[in-house]
């Protein structure tokens, strides 16, 4: 079953955010996804960012820069997003394992060029930015204040199939 994409965005304006920052290793002793929920982005090194803040609590979309999710292979990183209802990430680029883990969970790791991310980041000045995703049309629309902007993205046929199937286990089970 397809997940819900889009919603209120949080902006993490930094490159190379690693999976230790998204979910520190000390929480890897949990054996359920739900138990990770309070610890999202606990160790993120980013000026002005509050892991306990309202913006993060309300967010269902993460917008960030290059090489997002680098480091450890821990799927706990996508899971901590999933159990916090963040099913969409938008970045300039991703680390391979994190990106694959997102699609394997049936979630969306969208890539946009730097110029588009710059524009998205700038929209924060209008207040809350709400993103909607048209997966079949391969575009995202961002609204803030009276402003509205649209960006198109590319997704591989395989990644799209994973999202449609609800994840890699579902896809593989039906086929192999």
């Amino acid at each position, binding site marked *: 079953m397809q997940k819900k994409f889009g919603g209120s965005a949080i902006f993490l304006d930094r490159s*190379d955010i*690693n999976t*230790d*920052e998204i979910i*520190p*290793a*000390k929480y*890897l*002793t*949990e*054996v*359920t*996804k739900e138990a990770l929920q309070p610890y999202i982005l606990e*160790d993120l*090194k980013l000026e002005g960012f509050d892991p306990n803040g309202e913006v993060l609590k309300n967010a269902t979309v993460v917008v960030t820069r*290059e*090489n997002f999710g*680098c*480091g*450890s*292979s*821990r*799927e706990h990183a*996508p899971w901590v997003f999933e159990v916090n209802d963040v099913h969409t990430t938008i970045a300039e*680029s*991703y*680390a*391979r*394992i*994190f990106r*694959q*883990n997102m699609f*394997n*969970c049936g979630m969306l790791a969208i890539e946009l060029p730097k110029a588009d991310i710059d524009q998205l980041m700038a929209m924060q000045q209008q207040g809350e930015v709400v993103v909607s995703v048209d997966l079949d049309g391969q575009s995202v629309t961002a609204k803030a204040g009276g402003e509205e902007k649209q960006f198109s993205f590319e997704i*591989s*046929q*395989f990644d799209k*199939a994973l999202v449609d199937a609800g*994840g*890699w*286990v579902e896809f*593989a*089970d039906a*086929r*192999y």
Partner: protein
Amino acid sequence: MGKTLAEKIFDSHLRDEPFSGTKILSLDRVLCHEITTPVAIADLVWREKDRVFDREKIKVVIDHVTPSKDTKTATQAKMLRDWARRHDIPDFFDVGRNGVCHAIFPEKGYIRPGFTVIMGDSHTCTHGAFGAFAAGVGTTDLEVGILKGVCAFREPATIRVNLNGALSDGVYAKDVILHVIAKLGVNGATDRVIEFRGPIVDQMSMEARMTLCNMAVEAGGTSGVCMPDMTTVEYLWEFIQADFDNKEAALADYQQWVSDSDAVYTDTLNIDVSDLEPQVTFDYKPDCVKSVKEMAGTVVDQVYIGTCTNGRIEDLRQAAAILKGKVIADSVRGIVSPATPKIFQDALEEGIIKIFMDAGFCVTNPTCGACLGMSNGVLAEGEVAAATSNRNFNGRMGKGGMVHLMSPTTAAATALTGVITDARSL
């Protein structure tokens, strides 16, 4: 047009291509540890698909936190242990027989040239040292691997790194790979295989090649690979001698995996390492690298020698050569974790453990230990570690701690003085 080693492995293991550019490979090895596997097991049970595709091809170890430190880690270990027993998996390594995954699996001869290997661990790229395609994956990929014996990858593209010249005394594989990562950047090899070539690699032991390949992922690489050669055959000989008449025959067979001379690379880097000095990281990214000389004098609280990068016998020998007959600084806590029981035994027999203990080191059992701040050797806020591991991320060895990555030789010299030290200056 010729093919790279990765392309040859992809061709020979191709099970399906559901969409152009997406390759579903059949797997020779699915490796498991207690941190990333239990959730996969739980999910398989929940789906009523608690099966394994091939019990002989799945290898299992408890290594990250062992012996268990609390109820939660004991539960993880138990889930893995119960599962391994339930499926009668012959190669399962528990307390007393266990060691760091990327050290113990190669040591047992499980990794061969031309193999496809996955594990729920980003440093699975280590096993490419044997001329295998070995990639770290998440828990869902692992789960499908366990159940179906397949994994999906994008078309492999390869960066070739030619390591030329001659290494000076006191400069090792760790210094070389830190230098390569600094050149490539932390995402310079994303979605790429890094092929390590040239006279430097040809002369390296398997241990040193594993150190190189181990850190390929720190440049974003899917896998690091070295070409199989006589060094590979010698290392594997005790496990493969029944399969071949002699070593030359094994070598001839393994040559099929060597990249063709006219293979196509997305990039080629030529690096002359003759002038390379010992290297060390600063800050929180593995591509923040300086020479040890530039960082000399930085005070450290803890020195950690071990891990899947540099916890092998050769590494312990190099560190012991510096420590022999000396005592580490009062201000420093020295910890060494031999990466496997065999390495521990060899180090005992060679007198290396005694050298470490006489120097004032704490010797732990084989485990990941202090490497990832969830077991022993956790740093307090504001503390600084010198470590032979592969990651210096913020919080990696404990919240608010700083980690400087370096070779075992540099780590040993640093332990003696309490500040980052070039061993050649002692």
